């Protein structure tokens, strides 16, 4: 069999290049020992190739494979799922490379390499990664080509496979647009499928939000129709935390309904929210979303929820009414929970709250007094506050006096509750940055924020942002403006990095388009596109029909090409044939044995009135046909024109 030939060094070289290009971007995600193992296996193979050495004994390979398998099992504690899967495939590919002896082995390695190019997209689907994967696919395809056409020069091989890839491009585009998209997963995914998604969690402990403050990753984007709301109204609601155990805050009781528990009123803002996956159901809508948003549900604490945890980048068309009054009528359970405090924590704060409660008459006054007292405490807003002990609120308010937003919110809510006013912590994002390139509002993880809500009779839940007491600019201008100079900020939030920020804006705009149209091309978007193309209510039948039409179009093109191939004759012969055919219609067909000169003489005698042109044409043809070397194209065209213009009576 052909496939048992030993591959040439050049073929091996291509495969080595393909494997290196495929695995290099994986190195970040792979466990470090595995990355080193893969790199050394590739290096050993390269050395063997260089020195024309024999691959190691099969037993060695099996031992390394088993050891790597055990290592992967220890690393991930299971075998199923994308992370161990990719790790095992990577080792397998390197070992296959090492033990390859025949072209068949090389083909198997090529298939593994294609798999691993797909595997890159598990972690990252940026344009850069797409380009790397494409480069890998090009080299891998060149490996396949070199197995067939070993004689061609390397540059020619590379060119041919680039041509093949570019010829596959139209096919890819059509299928990408028309292939019926299914919202995955097809079956239960392993637990690690959604690991590595950052975002708010539904628990808040001191330090949990300041950790997010260091991340530049995008949480979501919002594109407003018209002007976006002012920064002071950009509160994007996440988990609402009511239960407090002295250290951490957790969500309290909340209903979930198809309708919101409020009447939206005031000015409306329409926007499209593109949410990065965070594996949580809440949507981070601007306070307070309208009543008729499809495929969502409304929580009793005014969050907007998706039907499923958001596990892929998703778009929502939303409308919000920031001025709505909410929660005028509130559940007794909710209010009771919003007043409960654990005993024996923060005695000093309790004392302060009691003092305020006796001073103030009624919740509104208590609220005002609390804010005033807090302002008087001269608290500092910082991203890296000192660690706190058991009585965290006491220590923050009276000892360290340094805290991030979660400290402020948590201390404020504690004081309010101790003074007898229902209050709760709300987490989410505040602010966001308008990208001047495409005008969208970009909200990053570093915009994560915690604020408070107080329930007042007759007014319902009222938002209070205690952070604004210490750092008003946090609300108006964002994190970097609010922090003292000595604080550590994410690189791009630092002042004086304008040029970098500008670059970042541009890149964000590009990747937003990429996200919307390439990565976010899902069943909904497919339906949208088809509707815009003029197919009302498209379903899988429309797609099948369109695919069929495209396939038929492709076939027609190929057929046309095949016919063109058949007609591709020598133009000189074609001209002569048309001449003979023309005269055949006048009863003077050329005999098969007749040469052009003889034929010309006979024609001149048959049609004496046209003797001159007929003889010229046949003499020209004979001269052009039987000359040494190829006929001059201009003369051929001239002859063809003479023949076309020849008119016989």
């Amino acid at each position, binding site marked *: 069999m052909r496939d048992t030939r030993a591959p040439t060094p050049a073929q091996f070289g291509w495969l080595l290049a393909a494997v290196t290009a495929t695995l290099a971007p994986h190195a970040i995600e792979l466990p470090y020992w595995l990355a080193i193992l893969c790199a050394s296996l590739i290096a050993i193979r390269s050395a063997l190739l260089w020195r024309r050495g024999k691959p190691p004994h099969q037993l060695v390979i099996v031992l390394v494979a088993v050891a790597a398998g055990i290592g992967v099992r220890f690393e991930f504690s299971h075998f199923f799922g994308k992370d161990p899967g990719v790790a095992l495939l990577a080792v397998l590919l390197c070992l296959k490379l090492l033990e390859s002896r025949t072209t068949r082995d090389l083909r198997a390695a090529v298939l593994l390499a*294609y798999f691993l190019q797909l595997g890159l997209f598990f972690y990252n689907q940026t344009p850069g990664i797409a380009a790397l994967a494409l480069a890998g696919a090009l080299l891998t395809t060149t490996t396949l080509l070199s197995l067939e056409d070993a*004689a061609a020069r390397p540059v020619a091989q590379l060119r041919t496979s680039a041509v093949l890839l570019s010829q596959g491009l139209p096919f890819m585009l059509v299928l990408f647009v028309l*292939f019926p998209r299914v919202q995955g997963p*097809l079956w239960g995914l392993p637990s690690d499928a959604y690991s590595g998604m950052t975002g708010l969690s539904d628990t808040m402990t001191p330090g949990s939000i300041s950790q997010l403050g260091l991340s530049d990753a995008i949480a979501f984007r919002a594109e407003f129709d018209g002007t976006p709301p002012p920064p002071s109204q950009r509160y994007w609601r996440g988990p609402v935390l009511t239960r407090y155990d002295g250290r951490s805050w957790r969500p309290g009781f909340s209903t979930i309904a198809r309708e919101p528990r409020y009447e939206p009123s005031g000015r409306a803002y329409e926007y499209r929210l593109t949410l990065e996956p965070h594996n949580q159901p809440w949507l981070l809508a601007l306070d307070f979303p309208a009543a008729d948003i499809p495929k969502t549900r409304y929580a009793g604490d005014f969050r907007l929820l998706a039907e499923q945890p958001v596990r892929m980048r998703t778009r929502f068309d939303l409308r919000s009414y920031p001025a709505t009054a909410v929660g005028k009528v509130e559940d007794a359970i909710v209010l009771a929970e919003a007043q409960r405090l654990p005993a024996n924590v923060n005695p000093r704060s309790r004392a302060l709250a009691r003092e305020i409660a006796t001073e103030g008459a009624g919740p509104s006054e208590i609220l005002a007094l609390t804010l005033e007292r807090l302002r008087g405490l001269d608290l500092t807003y910082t991203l890296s506050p000192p660690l706190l002990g058991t009585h965290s609120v006491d220590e923050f308010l009276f000892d360290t006096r340094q805290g991030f937003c979660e400290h402020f919110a948590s201390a404020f809510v504690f004081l309010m509750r101790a003074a007898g006013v229902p209050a709760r912590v709300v987490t989410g994002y505040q602010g966001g940055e308008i990208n001047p390139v495409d005008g969208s509002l970009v909200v990053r993880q570093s915009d994560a924020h915690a604020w408070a809500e107080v329930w007042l009779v007759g007014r319902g839940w009222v938002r209070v942002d205690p952070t604004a007491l210490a750092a008003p600019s946090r609300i108006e201008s964002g994190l970097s403006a609010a922090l003292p100079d000595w604080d550590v900020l994410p690189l791009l939030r630092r002042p004086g990095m304008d040029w970098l920020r500008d670059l970042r804006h541009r890149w964000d705009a590009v990747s937003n388009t990429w996200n919307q149209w*390439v*990565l976010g091309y899902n069943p909904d978007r497919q339906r949208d596109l088809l509707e815009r193309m003029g197919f009302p209510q498209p379903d899988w039948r429309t797609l099948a029909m369109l695919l069929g039409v495209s396939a038929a179009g492709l076939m027609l093109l190929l057929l046309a090409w095949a016919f063109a191939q058949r007609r591709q004759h020598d133009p000189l012969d074609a001209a002569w044939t048309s001449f003979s055919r023309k005269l055949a219609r006048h009863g003077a067909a050329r005999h098969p044995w007749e040469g052009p000169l003889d034929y010309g003489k006979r024609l001149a005698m048959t049609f004496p009135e046209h003797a001159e042109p007929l003889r010229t044409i046949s003499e020209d043809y004979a001269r052009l046909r039987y000359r040494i070397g190829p006929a001059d194209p201009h003369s051929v065209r001239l002859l063809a024109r003479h023949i076309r213009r020849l008119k016989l009576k």
Partner: protein
Amino acid sequence: MPARPDASRHHIIASRRHLVTLRRHLDRWLFRVGPPEPSPIVLGQRRIFVLPTPAGLAFAAALLVMLIASINYNLSLGYALVFLLGGVSVASIVHAFRNLLHLSFSPGRAEPVFAGESACFHIVVANHRPARRPALRLTAHGAAVPFEIGAGDGADVTVPVVTATRGWMTLGRVRIETTYPLGLIRAWSVLVPDQRCLVYPAPEPTPPPLPEGASRNLGQRAGAAGDDDFAGLRTHQPADSPRHVAWKTLARGGPMLTKQFSGMDGGEIDLDWNDLPANLGTEARLSRMTAWIMAAERRGLAFSLTLPDTRIATGRGPQHSTSCLQRLALFGTDVAADA
């Protein structure tokens, strides 16, 4: 039961025969393989067939798994990669097809051989397109010959075919195929060039000595010992065998001379079918006579050949030997008369 294996073998043979008949029908109907075609045979698009190779099927299976992974993990770029590779394999169908399209085949030489040797059929393949035709393969009688043709060039492909029996051997079905560019798709065509090779009978490995001299007493050597001894040089005559030209002398710049061996001119023998032992079968007789003709030719003896149906008068030289061998090759076959 002892009968069973035998019965099953019969069954297998019978089914194999069915398969062979089916193949022939399929060839005639689907691949339009019939009698030898006039040359040159140009591959048009209607006679090129395309199917995936096993590697292509494995590739398709891999793409399917990759597609399922993309659906399951909602990898938009995964879809893109799968569709791109799918597009590449579709494009490679066209490339494979094009690699065979308009190739032109003409039969070349096929020198006579002795039965048991490999007959070398030369096929001239011309490429009129100004582009390379890489990774082609020509298969006939189970032997595959890889080759490639440059732009606007031609190739003389030699297909070795093992011979078994004497007589005319036709080249028969020839398959031209290519798995270019990626080995995923095989394009092929079947052609029957009008080409045959004459197969002489296999010479007897250890024949008895030649029936020399006037004496027709077989089995006895009439000539003196040292038949093959070098006896001197004489001027060359056009009828002399090139094997006896004194090339060394010529190479040194000397005249063209012919080497003479003792007994060379003296011998004139009769190779007569009827003088062979009566218990010898037809093929064994032909083999022995073939061996004798070769021996006589080597020694420059003049000989005549008598077969039951013909007689070739005494002669000498390669021409004479060839026509005698031809008679032997075709002895008893229908084409003997016109050969």
